[in-house]
């Protein structure tokens, strides 16, 4: 199959690569760029583990092709903060015990930031409604909702 070249911005850095057109964005991130923070749960746009920001909007990176993203701006969990300098949303998940196994967490944090970007002080109902596309099999969601509320407070303050 003819390979295609694509140039896009990932976490503020321009990257150019050659891809098979059937490479999903999530596999491009994980396997070609070694950005393994973005996880794959279902690869059918259901679970939200692969959530990234595309041009500032949360999207599921398993339902996008890397080849589609010429000129696009993608932010992954690695782009928002790391162990040395955590994003307030990451800190909020740590402090509020918003994770257990951690599999869903990168997607939850990316969605949490997306929620906080649009709602200054989201209430519980808003957070739960907005989290419908992110599944967690460990926590029962309670602490995730608390974490996002705390992270949003921190981000707006």
């Amino acid at each position: 199959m003819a390979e295609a070249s694509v140039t896009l911005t990932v976490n503020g850095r321009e990257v150019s690569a050659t891809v098979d057109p059937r490479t999903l964005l999530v596999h491009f991130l994980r396997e070609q760029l070694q950005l393994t923070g973005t996880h794959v749960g279902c690869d059918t746009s259901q679970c939200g583990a692969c959530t990234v920001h595309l041009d500032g909007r949360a999207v599921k990176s398993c339902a996008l092709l890397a080849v589609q993203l010429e000129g696009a701006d993608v932010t992954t969990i690695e782009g928002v903060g790391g162990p040395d300098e955590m994003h307030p949303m990451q800190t909020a998940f740590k402090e509020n015990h918003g994770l257990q196994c951690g599999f869903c967490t990168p997607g939850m944090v990316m969605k949490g930031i997306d929620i906080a970007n649009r709602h200054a002080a989201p209430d519980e109902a808003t957070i739960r409604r907005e989290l419908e596309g992110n599944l967690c099999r460990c926590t029962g969601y309670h602490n995730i909702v608390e974490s996002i509320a705390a992270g949003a407070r921190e981000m707006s303050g």
Partner: protein
Amino acid sequence: MKPPRFRYLRAESVDGALRALADNPDSRPLAGGQSLIAMMNLRLVRPACLVDINRVAGLGYIREDGDGVAIGALTRHNDVKHSDLVRARCPLLTEAYESIAHHTVRNRGTLGGNLCHADPSSETPAVMVAVGATLVLQSVGGRREVAAEDFFQGPYETAARQDELLVEIRLPGRGAEGWAFAEVSNRHGDFAIAVIATTLRLADGRCEAARVVASAVGEHAARLRPAEDALTGGAIDDAAIERAAEAAAGAVDPHSDSHADAVYRRDAVAALTRRTLRRAAERCG
């Protein structure tokens, strides 16, 4: 690699997309990918060629169209959901969007892709039929307009040919029409177990025209004519609503699956018909 192999073509204009579709009889348009890429990842479909329409200029818009609204096929779900113009002129669609998918999916999925996918449980086809929408299809051969009622033909089957692109969705002005949408689903935002979308027009207290449209309980969204007949000509009182609910339940032949059995779905149709007709009657005028 998850999806099977395909050739990838990126269209920059409507004409370019139409030519690519015509030149490649094994191709399909790729819009938001929320249904198509997922199905390719599961290898349920294997199009040999994808024509990506995401960069096509002039396919994403919401604008006035007489006293109605015209929506470009590539308009993202969330943009339609939050449009003040849509809320003012086709509030039935805004109300239905409360039940459609999740925020992240709606950021990418498009109204046009949703309609062309024609999932038998989808909400939007029922809305389109209830308001009498017109779908504008275009190919290299020209344009044609199809009434929503004739567009949905079976599960995942529409009147659009392989070489045609849905370019515009036209929603007529509502006048004094009453309207209501309701569904039953297992979890909020999931595909529905039963959907009813209703529109009502009254003149001097009598029902002049009614549409009662069901989804998720048949092969495609469809009008329940016996229910409509039970309403037209008379007053919309409790007795008429009860007759219509019974007629609606009798007019569907739902399937059983792991989400709900046929008996439950039929009951849901009656309940939703009652609920939507009451609300639609209150909203007339």
